[in-house]
C-alpha cells in the first residue's frame, strides 16, 4: 500500500466506524469499497489491499466482490459520473436522443472518461424515477424530465467548471469522491437541501385533495 500516513490513519478510523455498524465485519465490505472510491476516485489496487487487510480477506476475494457491482470503478473515474437512462421507458420518451447528443458533446462513449478527468459517461439502467422520464443522473443525483437542450446545458456547465443543481437533491452536485463518502455511510449535512417530492410524486395526492378523498374511513 502506498497511502501516506495521515490518509491511512483516516481510512483506518473510518473503516473501524463502518465495521462497528455490523454484527459481522465482512458486511462492511461494500461500504468500505465506497470509502476507497471516496479517497482514490476508483477501486484502486491500494484500496483493495486496504479492504482485504482490514477485513482479513484475500485481495482476490475483495476483487471478486468489487467487479460484481457496476458502481465500483476499475479505472480512475471522472469527477462527475453522468448517466443517461436508456432503459425502455426513458429511451422511448427521448432518452436515446439525449444520450446521443450528450455523448457527442462530451466526446466519449459508455463507460469512458474525458481526457481532463471531468466526466465519465454511462448509459444507465432504470433508476426508479420513471414518472420523471427522461432521466439523467449526475453522481447519483436526480435530473428529471430532461430534454437534449436541458441535458446539454447541465453538461456544458460541468465542463465549464460551474456547479450544477439537481431537480431533487442537494443545492449543488458534490463530486464523485464526495458522494462516495456518503455511500460509505457518512452524512454530509445536505439531507435537508432540495425538495421532498417532485410534481409527479404528488400527482395522486393532488387529485385526492381536489376531490376531497381521504383514507380516514377506508376506501369507497
Amino acid at each position, binding site marked *: 500500500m502506498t497511502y501516506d500516513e495521515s490518509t491511512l490513519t483516516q481510512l483506518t478510523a473510518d473503516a473501524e466506524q463502518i465495521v462497528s*455498524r455490523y*454484527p459481522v465485519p465482512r*458486511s462492511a*465490505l*461494500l461500504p468500505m469499497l*465506497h470509502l476507497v472510491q471516496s479517497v482514490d476516485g476508483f477501486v484502486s489496487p491500494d484500496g483493495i489491499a486496504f479492504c482485504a487487510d482490514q*477485513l482479513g480477506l484475500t485481495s482476490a476475494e475483495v476483487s471478486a*466482490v468489487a467487479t*460484481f*457491482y*457496476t*458502481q*465500483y470503478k476499475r479505472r480512475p473515474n471522472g469527477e462527475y459520473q453522468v448517466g443517461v437512462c436508456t*432503459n*425502455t*421507458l426513458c*429511451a*422511448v*420518451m*427521448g432518452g*436515446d436522443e439525449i*444520450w*446521443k447528443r450528450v455523448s457527442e458533446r462530451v466526446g466519449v462513449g*459508455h463507460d469512458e472518461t474525458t481526457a481532463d478527468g471531468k466526466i465519465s459517461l454511462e448509459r444507465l*439502467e*432504470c*433508476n426508479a*424515477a*420513471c*414518472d*420523471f*422520464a*427522461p432521466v439523467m*443522473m449526475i*453522481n*447519483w443525483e436526480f435530473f428529471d*424530465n430532461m*430534454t*437534449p437542450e436541458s441535458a446539454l446545458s447541465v453538461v456544458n456547465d460541468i465542463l465549464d467548471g460551474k456547479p450544477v443543481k439537481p431537480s431533487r*437533491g442537494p443545492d449543488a452536485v458534490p463530486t464523485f469522491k464526495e458522494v462516495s463518502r*456518503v*455511500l460509505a*455511510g457518512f*452524512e454530509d449535512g445536505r439531507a*435537508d437541501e432540495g425538495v*421532498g417530492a417532485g*410534481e409527479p*410524486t*404528488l*400527482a*395522486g*395526492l393532488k*387529485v*385526492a385533495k381536489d*376531490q376531497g*378523498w381521504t*383514507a380516514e374511513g*377506508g*376506501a*369507497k
Partner: protein
Amino acid sequence: MTELVPVLSANWDQEQSWKHASYVKGGGYGALKKALGIDKADLVQMVKDSGLRGRGGAGFPTGMKWGFLPPDDGKPRYLVVNADESEPGTCKDIPLMMANPHVLVEGVAITSYAIGCNHAFIYVRGEVVHVYRRLLQAVREAYEAGDLGKNIHGSGFDLDVTVHAGAGAYICGEETALLDSLEGRRGQPRLKPPFPAVAGLYARPTVVNNVESVASVPAIVERGVEWFAGMGTERSKGHGLFSLSGHVEKPGQYEASLGITLRELLEMAGGMRGGKSLKFWTPGGSSTPIFTEEHLDTPLDYESVGAAGSMLGTRALQIFDETTCVVRAVTRWTEFYKHESCGKCTPCREGTFWLTQILKRLEAGNGTEADIQQLLDTCDSIAGRSFCALGDGATSSIISSVKLFREEYERHVTEGKCPFDHAASALFDYTAASSTSEPTTEEAHA
C-alpha cells in the same frame, strides 16, 4: 369510481416532510408507542388479519411470513428491508423514502419488535444518494428522539438500525442475493430452502420485506385491522402505490385501494398524452407480461391480474401509446436482463445473451421469420428452468408481445427495418434523421 386513498403519501406535500418533527406533528411514531404496549404475538396476528401482502412483487402474506420464524432461541434474528428498487418501471419506494423516510423507520421499529429483532437493516440501492442521505438522517433523528436505540420509550425493547447502500446490481433485489450482498459478497441468489425465515442473514432467522410493506404497518397498528381490510378486494386488501409512467398526461404516484383499474387511473392522470391511443402497458414492471387496451378494466389486484395472464408485481404501470415500437421496447428490456443476469445459472446467463442477439437482429430489420420462433424456443429454455425469478421475468415481455403483436415482429422482417419513427414517441421534438445511428448497446452493456 374507485377513490384514491392517500395513506403513505398523505404528508408528502408538507413542509420538510422528511424531518422527524414534521412526521411527529402529523401523528408519527404514535403507532410505535401503541405497538410497544401490545403483545408481540398479537401484533403478528394483527398483520395477518389485516390481509397485508408483500408489496415487493410476489404478494406473499406479510403476517404469515413473520409467523414462519422459528421460536425465539435467545440468539439474534433480523429484519432486512428491501429498498433495492431496480425493476424497470418501478418507482414507488424511492420517492416514498425521499419524502417520508420516517414512516419506514417507524415500520421497521414496530416490525422488529413484533418478530423479536434487535438489529434491523435497510438495504437501499446505491444509485440514489439523496434518498440515502434522508434515510441516514431519519435514523439518526429517531435515535435522538428515543424511537430507536436502548429501552425504546421505556419498553425494555432495544433496536439498532443500519442503513446500508448497495452498489448497482438489480439482482440484489432478489431476497437471498440481497442477503449475500449484505454479508459483503457478490449478490447471487441462494438455493431455497432453507428460506430466510429459517436461515437468512448470517444464517439466522430473517424477515425480508419490501419498503412499502413495512411502511404500511404503522397505519394498520394505528387505525386498525378493519380499516385496512375495508380497502381493496376479497383477497387483495388495503392500499398501494400505483406508479404511472410513460405516455400519460400526468405521470406519477397514485395511492389507491387494490382493485382500481387502469381506466380509472388514466382518468385521474389526465388521460393519454395528446389524446393518443393506448397500445401496451405493464401492470407490474418489466418482468410482468404486457397488457393492452383490452385490459383497461381489469381490477389491479393479485387475483384479477393473474387471471388475465400477467402479475400485479410492483404496480409499475408503464404506459406506451400507438407511436411506440413494441419490438424496440422489448429488446431494450431484454438487454437489461442480459446485463443484470448474475451468471450463476446457464439458462439465464446464456439464454438472455441469445435473446438479445436475436431481438437486436429483428429490431434492426435483419431478422427472419424463423427468428421469431427461435425467440420463443429460447424463452422456453429459460422460463421455469432458471435458478431464480430473474430468468423467468426476462421472458415475460417477449412471450406476451409475440402473442399480442406478432404481426409487428413480422413487419420488421418483411420491411427490413423498424416501421416506427422513434422521434414520435419522445416528449420533445427532434428530427428522426438524427436518430438513425443508435448507440450500439452491445459494448454499452458488456
